[in-house]
């Protein structure tokens, strides 16, 4: 049984001018100890998916349909108090900006201790000892002294280490890391990613790593989901998706990573920008920007289909132009939703 399963998740935002669908029918799963990367441009719905999983969608956003299961137990419809006990204890979270994630008025020790004491029966002294231990673990020098200092006395990178300590402090099984390095200096980013990767491997913690940085994904993730306009465009093992990208959008994303060695080549760019949630085109949402779009793409929305080792929602791999015509048709008919979860492992 996977650690986390998301089935046909739909997240909606009712607004004055109609309901926006920020996440549209997404299914994915994360296994124990696995790192799933979620990439896409801002507004693709990746952060929204993360927020839905920890049950902290900002009102008026809400899960309109679908299910979220943690270790087989449904968590998307839990009452606030039950969900609160899961947050921090079984699912941790790391947010984008370490500068604003910590309460400026309390020492980092106090924030660690209160989190530890919320979820365990440790005494104040034990909790404090654990806090110092955690600071050591995330690589903060002189933790006995630092524990009583305030967030503004830490640098950005150090603060993100504190945030990681906070997310890990009662050993959750899953961490949702939402752009954990975006706000940091490039030189610090690699350190933080390495730290996160090491700690999660040591603790056997699974990670859902939300980012728009393909480079981070390539370095860290086991599998990757590429999101576009609220839907998954392609999902599969990280090597397959990077080396053998199927969806034209993923191709485009790869093109926008600068790689050493090919310095003569121009950095490729995807023309245009992602549609606003208010006017998502019919058919494949990517069709106005897609170099390969044809008539069908403009009218019928593609579903995720297994192509080689990954799953892709693109008509190029179906119908007359498709390579796997027979195989994919059969699979779609047989498996549908469940298959999305199972088949991805391959």
């Amino acid at each position, binding site marked *: 049984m996977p650690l986390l399963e998301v089935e046909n998740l739909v997240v909606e935002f009712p607004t004055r001018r109609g309901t926006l669908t920020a996440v549209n029918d997404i299914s994915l799963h994360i296994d124990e100890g696995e790192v799933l990367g979620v990439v896409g441009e801002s507004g693709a719905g990746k952060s929204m998916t993360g927020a839905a999983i920890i049950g902290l969608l900002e009102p008026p956003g809400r899960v309109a349909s679908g299910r979220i299961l943690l270790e087989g137990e449904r968590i998307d419809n839990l009452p606030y108090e039950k969900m*609160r006990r899961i947050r921090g204890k079984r699912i941790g979270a790391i947010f984008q900006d370490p500068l604003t994630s*910590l*309460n400026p008025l309390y020492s980092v020790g106090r924030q660690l201790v209160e*989190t530890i004491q*919320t979820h365990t029966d440790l005494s104040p002294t034990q909790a404090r000892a654990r806090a110092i231990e955690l600071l050591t673990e995330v690589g903060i020098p002189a933790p006995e002294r630092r524990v009583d200092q305030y967030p*503004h006395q830490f640098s950005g990178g150090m603060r993100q280490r504190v945030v990681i300590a906070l997310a890990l402090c009662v050993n959750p099984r899953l961490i949702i890391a939402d752009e954990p390095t975006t706000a940091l200096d490039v030189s610090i980013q690699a350190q933080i990613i390495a730290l996160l990767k090491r700690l999660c491997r040591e603790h056997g913690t699974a990670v859902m790593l939300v980012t728009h940085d393909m480079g981070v994904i390539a370095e860290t993730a086991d599998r990757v989901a590429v999101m576009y306009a609220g839907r998954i465009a392609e999902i599969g093992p990280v090597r397959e998706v990077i080396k053998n990208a199927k969806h034209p959008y993923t191709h485009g994303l790869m093109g926008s990573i600068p790689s050493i060695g090919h310095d003569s080549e121009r950095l490729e760019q995807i023309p245009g920008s992602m549609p606003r949630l208010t006017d998502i085109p019919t058919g494949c949402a990517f069709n106005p920007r897609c170099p390969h779009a044809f008539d069908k793409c403009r009218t019928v929305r593609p579903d995720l289909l297994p192509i080689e080792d990954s799953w892709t929602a693109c008509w190029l791999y179906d119908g007359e132009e498709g390579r796997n015509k027979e195989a994919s048709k059969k699979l779609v008919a047989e498996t549908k939703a469940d298959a999305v979860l199972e088949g991805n492992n391959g």
Partner: protein
Amino acid sequence: MVAFILRRLIQSLFVMFFVALVSFSMFRFVGDPVNQMVGIETSIAEREALRERLGLNDPFMVQFGRYIGKAATGEFGISYQHKRPVAEMLVERMPATLELALVSAVFSLLLGVPMGVYAGLNRDGFISKVLLSVSLVGISLPTFLIGILLIFFFSVQLNLLPSFGRGGLIDIGLWKTGLLTIDGWKSLIMPSITLGLFQLTLIMRLVRSEMLEVLRTDYIKFARARGLTNRAVHFGHALKNTLVPVITITGLQLGSIIAFAIITETVFQWPGMGQMFLQAVTTVDIPIMAAYLMLIAFFFVVINLIVDLLYYVVDPRLRVDTGKASGHG
């Protein structure tokens, strides 16, 4: 931190200096002090002699310097109207005003903060909306009208509370207090509600909007993501972060409560400094007006310094690096 406090002290001195200049200019140039002091039958020579004796012929800066020197030792001249030293009159009436201001301030804080927190946490709740609408009505009602309405209901119609004066007073040295008798407290109820209602609505609205602001921040989101209880998130994290702006505004409001007392004291014939100031305005009794202005400025400056010190208690960012502290001017 010492540097910061010093800086604020110098700023305060500048404010006091400026106010002293205004108040001295009033004193010196509005009407002729000599004319106010002597009868019509006084000869021009005698007037000139008096003028010389009072030093009114000295250069402006010399006179101003003398004025400041005297003010610093608590001497504000003689009232034109009452022919008594202004300082003496102010001291006599200060307890009444300070007691009224203090009780109103406590009243508005004790009710305003919890109401604001409630309205911030339940922003779409029915009670919050009622509180908010009522508070708008509260802001729209002029102070004196609130006083009149209270008198109309509780004194005229129900005959429950006294409509004027301070009730029974007890002497503690120089200080005549109304806080030690039941009668005195009964007399305080309506004036302090009248005076405090505006501040109450203001504090409530401020706390509410600050709460809403803070609840949107990342660290509150992160606190929730860590699974902290609602109580810890709301009162431990959110409320504490609203305190800095709330302390600022409340501090300023306390200063203005003392000044706003002018209106309340008039409605309830409360024998305080405000009432005296108003009489001075009607009779153009400049020494009293000038002294009152200085006194209010002094209260204001002191309260501001206290507010600055409170920042240090609340916000650790100010405690360490004085360099950044200037942002909280």
